[in-house]
C-alpha cells in the first residue's frame, strides 16, 4: 500500500489522471489522439523497463533498443507471411518478454562485471550490433525492408485491425501490470539489493549480495519489458525494420527517465508522457501551425537537440528529475562515500603507473 500521508499534490494529480484514463475514449473520440497515446504507452513501457536497469540498479544501458528490436522481431517472425507462421498474439506477449529476457542474460552475463562507464559503451555496442545483424541476416529478417503484414491481435473473435481503441485498452492494461510489477520489485529484497549495488558495489558484495546475478536480474527483467512493448509495437505498425531500433530510440527512452527522475516510477510516467506527447503530438502540431501561417519549418528535426538539452540541463541542475526523490538528488550530486571520502591509504601506496 502506498503511504497516503506522504502524498504530494503531484501524486494526487497523477492518481486522478490514471483513474480517468480508461474513460478518456468516451469523451475524446479523436482517433489521432488515441494513436498518440498508444505510442506514448509503448514508450512508457520501455521507460519502465529501462528504469529497472538504470534507475533501480544504476547500470547505464545505452543499447536498450536492442531488446526492443529482439521483442519486435520475435513476434514478427512467427506472426507474419515471412515464414508462413501465424502464432496467436497473446501467448507471444509472454514469449517475447521471455526471449528478450533471455537475450538480456546472454548479453549481460559476460559484461556485467565491467565498470559502469565501460558497461555503458558495451551496451551501446550491442545496440549497434543487433539491428545491424537483423539488417545483414536478410534471409530471416527481410534485411532493410524488414518484415511486413504482421498479424494483429484477435480477442474472442474480435479483430484489432486499424482502430486504435482496442490497442489503447491493451496498452493501458499492460502498463498497469508493468507498473505494479516494477513497484513490487522496488520494494523487495531484490530492489534493496539493487539499491545497495547502485550506492556501493563493493560494500554490497561484502553484505553477501551476489552482485553478478543481482545485476543480471536487473538486466534481464528490464529487457523483458521491452520485449512486451516490442510485440505491441510490431502488431500495431504491422511492420518491423532495422531502422526502427537505432541508437536514437535508446536515447529517447533514456531522456524520458532523466527528465522524469531516474529510479522513481511516477517520474518515469511523467517523463515518458511528457516526451511522448511532445514527440508524437506537439512537434507535428507545431509544423501544421507554422504551415498555416505560411512558414515551413520542420520542428521534428529539432527533436534530438531537445533531448540533448534535456540530458545536459537536467543532469546539471536537477539530477533527480522533474518528479525527483531526495535520495536520488543527494546520490547524484556527490559520490556516495560517507564521511571519509579518502580512499584507503594502502591502496594509494600501491604502485600505479598511469602513462598520462
Amino acid at each position, binding site marked *: 500500500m502506498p503511504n497516503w500521508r506522504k502524498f504530494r499534490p503531484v501524486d494526487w494529480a497523477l492518481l486522478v489522471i490514471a483513474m480517468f484514463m480508461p474513460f478518456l475514449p468516451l469523451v475524446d473520440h479523436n482517433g489521432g489522439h488515441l494513436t498518440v497515446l498508444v505510442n506514448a504507452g509503448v514508450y512508457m513501457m520501455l521507460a519502465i523497463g529501462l528504469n529497472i536497469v538504470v534507475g533501480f540498479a544504476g547500470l547505464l544501458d545505452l543499447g536498450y533498443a536492442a531488446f526492443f528490436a529482439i521483442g519486435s522481431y520475435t513476434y514478427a517472425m512467427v506472426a507474419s507471411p515471412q515464414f508462413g507462421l501465424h502464432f496467436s498474439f497473446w501467448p507471444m506477449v509472454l514469449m517475447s518478454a521471455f526471449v528478450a529476457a533471455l537475450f538480456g542474460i546472454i548479453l549481460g552475463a559476460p559484461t556485467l562485471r565491467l565498470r559502469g562507464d565501460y558497461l555503458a559503451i558495451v551496451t551501446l555496442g550491442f545496440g549497434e550490433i543487433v539491428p545491424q545483424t537483423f539488417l545483414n541476416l536478410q534471409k530471416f529478417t527481410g534485411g532493410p525492408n524488414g518484415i511486413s503484414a504482421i498479424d494483429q491481435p484477435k480477442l474472442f473473435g474480435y479483430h484489432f485491425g486499424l482502430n486504435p481503441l482496442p490497442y489503447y485498452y491493451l496498452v493501458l492494461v499492460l502498463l498497469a501490470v508493468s507498473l505494479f*510489477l516494477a513497484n513490487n520489485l522496488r520494494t523487495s529484497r531484490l530492489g534493496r539489493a539493487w539499491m545497495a549495488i547502485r550506492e556501493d558495489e563493493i560494500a554490497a*558484495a*561484502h*553484505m*553477501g549480495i551476489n552482485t553478478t546475478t543481482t545485476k543480471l536480474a536487473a538486466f534481464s527483467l528490464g529487457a523483458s519489458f521491452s520485449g512486451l512493448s516490442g510485440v505491441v509495437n510490431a502488431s500495431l505498425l504491422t511492420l518491423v525494420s532495422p531502422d526502427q531500433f537505432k541508437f536514437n530510440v535508446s536515447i529517447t527512452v533514456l531522456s524520458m527517465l532523466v527528465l522524469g527522475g531516474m529510479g522513481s516510477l511516477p517520474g518515469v510516467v511523467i517523463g515518458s508522457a511528457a516526451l511522448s506527447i511532445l514527440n508524437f503530438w506537439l512537434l507535428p502540431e507545431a509544423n501544421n501551425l507554422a504551415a498555416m501561417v505560411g512558414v515551413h519549418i520542420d520542428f521534428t528535426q529539432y527533436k534530438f537537440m531537445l533531448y540533448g538539452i534535456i540530458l545536459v540541463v537536467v543532469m546539471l541542475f536537477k539530477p533527480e528529475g522533474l518528479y525527483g526523490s531526495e535520495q536520488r538528488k543527494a546520490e547524484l550530486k556527490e559520490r556516495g562515500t560517507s564521511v571519509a571520502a579518502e580512499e584507503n591509504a594502502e591502496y594509494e601506496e600501491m604502485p600505479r603507473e598511469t602513462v598520462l
Partner: protein
Amino acid sequence: MSFFALKNVTKTFGGLVAVKEVSYEIEQGHIAAMIGPNGAGKSTAFNLVTGLYVPTAGEIEFDGRSIAGNKPDYVCKLGVARTFQNIRLFAFMSAVENVMAGCHVRMSAMLWDSLLHTGRQKREERAVREKALDLLRFVSLDRYADDFAHNLPYGFQRRLEIARALASDPKLLLLDEPAAGMNPREKEDLMTLIRKIRDRGITVFLIEHDMGLVMNISEKIAVLDHGEKIAEGTPAQVRNDAKVIEAYLGKTA
C-alpha cells in the same frame, strides 16, 4: 583445524609485497587484534579474508574450510562480516534499510516473490524489519532508523556499519579501525559494544590504531610491519616486545 587461521599468507601487487607470509590463528569466541603502522598491510589482510583480493600464496581457514579465493558474497554467506576503514555505508538509504540490506544473505525471497509480493515475501519483509530495528537498538541507533546514513554523525555511522555487519548473522566479525575519529567517550561505548558482540558468541577480529582500546579488550594481538608479522601474543607480551617498540618508535641509533 582452528576456527580461523591465516597460514603463510602472502599478497603482492606488481613488485610490492603488501603481506608477507603472515600466519595468525584466532579461537572461537575471542577478541583478537592486528596492529601496526600505516601501510603495514593490515587492511590488505582483511581484504584477503573477505575475498576482495586473492592471496598470492598461503591458505585462509575459517570454520572448517579453506576460504582463500572465494568471492566476498560467498565469504559473507559462510559467516564472515566486516566494516570498512573509511565507512562504506549505503549513504542514501535510511539506517534501517542499511541494516535490512545486511540481512540479504539470510533471506530467502526469490525473484518470483519479489515480483508478486507473495505472502511469504511479506512475512519475511516484516520479520527482517523487526530484526533490523532490534540491531539498531543493540547499537543504540533506533531513534535514527529513518535517517539517511549519510546524515548521521561520524561515530554513529561507525556503529551503524557494525549493525549492518551483524545483520548477516556472522560467526566472525572483522572491524577495520572501528575507533577511528571517535572521542574518548565514544571509544568507551565502542569497547562495551565490542564486548557485547563477543558475548553473543561472535568472534571479533579488529584492526586498530588506538593502543588503549586494543590493549584493553583484546585477548590476543598480532603486530604487522612492512607486511610481515613481527610479534604475536597477549597485550602484555606485545607491549614489552623489543621489535614492536622499534617498529613504532623507530630505531634509536
